[in-house]
């Protein structure tokens, strides 16, 4: 087997193992399947363009999750900027509604959308550690490493995320703007 075929196969196996994890994380952070797909594409292309594949699948997972985390963060900042501009334009009485992008819904029905909406309403700082815990199956130590915070901090943020999330869901009248 030549080197190119070997490399290709290694990439393919990294891709098929890690795509589901990365996509779930990106989706639950951004709330959009299409955006999540775009971010995953960027992350994988970055990975595949690097000079050599990382030695273990676990290394690749950390590397890719870190990249996706950064991309999600940039996306979040962009969204906030857009929202601010939008608010400036329609300050008076516009109700900011979720824009229909025409993409097919990733989640099955409305009840499920509600949980995702509540998740999106969490501050980014709390949302990211919780999403990594629940959808990327990572322990506090690894999450701390990815986010560059202490394990104690991870524990507190996940706890606060859960408290806030369940209060959103209890109220049931979530207005995400």
């Amino acid at each position: 087997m030549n080197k190119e075929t070997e490399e290709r196969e290694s990439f393919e196996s990294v891709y098929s193992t890690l795509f589901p994890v990365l996509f779930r994380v990106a989706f639950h952070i951004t709330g959009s399947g299409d955006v999540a797909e775009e971010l995953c594409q960027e992350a994988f292309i970055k990975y595949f363009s690097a000079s050599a594949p990382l030695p273990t699948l676990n290394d690749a997972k950390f590397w890719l999750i870190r990249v996706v985390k950064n991309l999600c963060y940039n996306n979040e900042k962009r969204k906030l900027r857009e929202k601010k501009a939008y608010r400036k334009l329609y300050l008076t009485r516009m109700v900011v509604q979720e824009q229909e992008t025409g993409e097919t819904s990733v989640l099955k029905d409305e009840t499920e959308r509600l949980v995702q909406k509540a998740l999106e309403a969490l501050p980014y700082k709390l949302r990211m550690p919780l999403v990594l815990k629940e959808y990327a199956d990572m322990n506090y130590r690894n999450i701390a490493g990815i986010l560059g915070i202490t394990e104690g901090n991870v524990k507190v943020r996940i706890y606060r995320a859960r408290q806030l999330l369940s209060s959103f869901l209890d109220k049931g009248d979530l207005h995400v703007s």
Partner: protein
Amino acid sequence: MCPNTALLSALIDGELPHRFEQHITDHIHGCSICRKEMARFSSLREKLQQDNITQTEITARESRLWRSIEHKMLSRKKHPLLHRSINLPLPALAALCLVMAASMVTAAYHGFAAHTYNFPPDELPSFSTMDELIGYLEQTQRTGIMEMSLPEDPVFLFISQPTLMPEREYRDAKW
């Protein structure tokens, strides 16, 4: 005394030291308040899991994206130069734009027909700011060799790929 609810959240994640874990589990057994809290955390986790994306959705997106990535990687291999991102120091990028701008100014005044000038021009003004340089380019119909020196310790910033831009746009752009 009941443990802090933050500890219960960590317990759900299996993140308590073993000794602690046993102690708290024993307490929860005999405490209805803590049992209720634990049930709340468990149900939240369940909701989040139910809210997960279906396998069908994942598989569909996975294969679609793979085709797209493969296509992008292949075209990249064929034209390595077209796709390689180039790191340029900021001043160099500005210089590049200016050189392009300068040639466009000349082209705009004289068309592309050959005009001869003295090279280098008799006196070559020097500029310390971009504004001066742009001002000069606007006033003069002549062009010549422009020497641009980079700062002694240039700060290297990643900008993007060099772009060709009309002189007017370069002038109006906020750098």
